[in-house]
């Protein structure tokens, strides 16, 4: 089976390729609410609505200690994949109090990124004042502290490799905002793949069910698994009225459900190069098959020309 790796990146305020200097040199470094040129909305922690929310340069969350404000991995398909989480985040604090706790949690346990730095990582329990366990395979540290007239800028860099259940960002800090990026590298030795474009929010339950049964889907389109028959069985039960495809890379067969080859775009054929396509079920109506094709096309940047529909 192929060993697959996928890098999933969450960026806040910056794109992953931006450096700390890009931010420090920006004219708005001292007051994020004046920024208009950042790549993605930054995170601002405030109990009132800051001005940057209105111009779309930030997203605000309430200042509430131990508040999980973003789930970057929901724990589905745990123990079926390998994970490596790393981050590079910049905080600004007005208080000069050296306590910043915006960190990822591992299975509900908060990782502190400030108390002990540089050095190996520590975990803290849900009661964040109580020391937790040492993780020998983690490595994160305070990269840089810069004093500005408006407070401290701190940059943290780190990574952890583990089979964790969940990863979320929790807030309990004097910082007013956060920019930076968090990356998760998922890996699994798995095949075949189901091609079933889904909206994580709209189709949460079936999406979650698939990811628990199969490997983690980083893009909500490609679901990797281990047995083509298991995948077809599960998909037939969960999505009896949808269109989907499963590609068995062992036999090079592309199975089509509620689809015919007419609806399969040429770029997907070029990408998978199936020896054969087998129609498990012809489309009950054209709308079902077209919906699959439309979703797939919207989510795939490789598409070059629209498919010719019957």
């Amino acid at each position, binding site marked *: 089976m192929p060993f697959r790796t996928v890098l999933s990146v969450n960026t806040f305020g910056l794109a992953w390729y931006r450096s700390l200097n890009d931010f420090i040199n920006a004219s708005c470094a001292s007051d994020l609410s004046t920024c208009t040129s950042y790549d993605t909305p930054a995170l601002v922690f405030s109990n009132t609505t800051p001005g940057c929310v209105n111009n779309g340069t930030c997203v605000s969350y309430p200042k509430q200690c131990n508040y999980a404000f973003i789930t970057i991995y929901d724990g589905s398909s745990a123990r079926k994949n390998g994970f490596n989480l790393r981050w590079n985040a910049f905080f600004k604090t007005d208080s000069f109090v050296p306590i910043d706790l915006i960190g990822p949690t591992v299975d509900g346990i908060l990782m502190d990124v400030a108390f002990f730095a540089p050095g190996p990582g520590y975990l803290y329990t849900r009661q964040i004042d109580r020391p937790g366990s040492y993780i020998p395979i983690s490595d994160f540290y305070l990269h840089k502290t810069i004093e500005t007239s408006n407070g401290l800028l701190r940059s943290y860099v780190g990574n952890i490799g583990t089979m964790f259940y969940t990863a979320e960002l929790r807030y309990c800090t004097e910082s007013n905002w956060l920019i930076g990026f968090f990356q998760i590298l998922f890996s699994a030795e798995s095949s075949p793949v189901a091609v079933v474009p889904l909206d994580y929010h709209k189709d949460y339950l079936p999406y979650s069910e698939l990811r628990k049964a199969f490997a983690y889907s980083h893009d909500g389109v490609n679901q990797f698994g281990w047995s083509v028959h298991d995948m077809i069985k599960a998909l037939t039960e969960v999505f009896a009225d949808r269109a989907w495809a499963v590609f068995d890379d062992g036999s090079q067969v592309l199975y089509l459900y509620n689809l015919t*080859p007419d609806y*399969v775009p040429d770029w997907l054929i070029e990408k998978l190069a199936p020896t054969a396509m087998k*129609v498990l079920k012809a489309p009950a109506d054209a709308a079902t098959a077209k919906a699959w094709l439309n979703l797939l096309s919207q989510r795939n940047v490789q598409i070059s020309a629209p498919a010719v529909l019957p």
Partner: protein
Amino acid sequence: MSGRQPPPKPPEPPRAPPIQPPVKKKVKIRKGGRWVDVDVDGEIRKGRFKYVKFVDDDGLDTYWISPE
């Protein structure tokens, strides 16, 4: 006894030739490590590949990559 001969039968109208099922094109495909003859129901082209359509042993409509 009249000794008359029965009138000759009128000639039968010419019969239409029996309708033969269309002869399906046979194509050799590489399947399971062997060359197999299959009766093709059609052909489609997807990208740079050409597939022949037939009903496989599992009863499914199947499109197999054409060796041609």
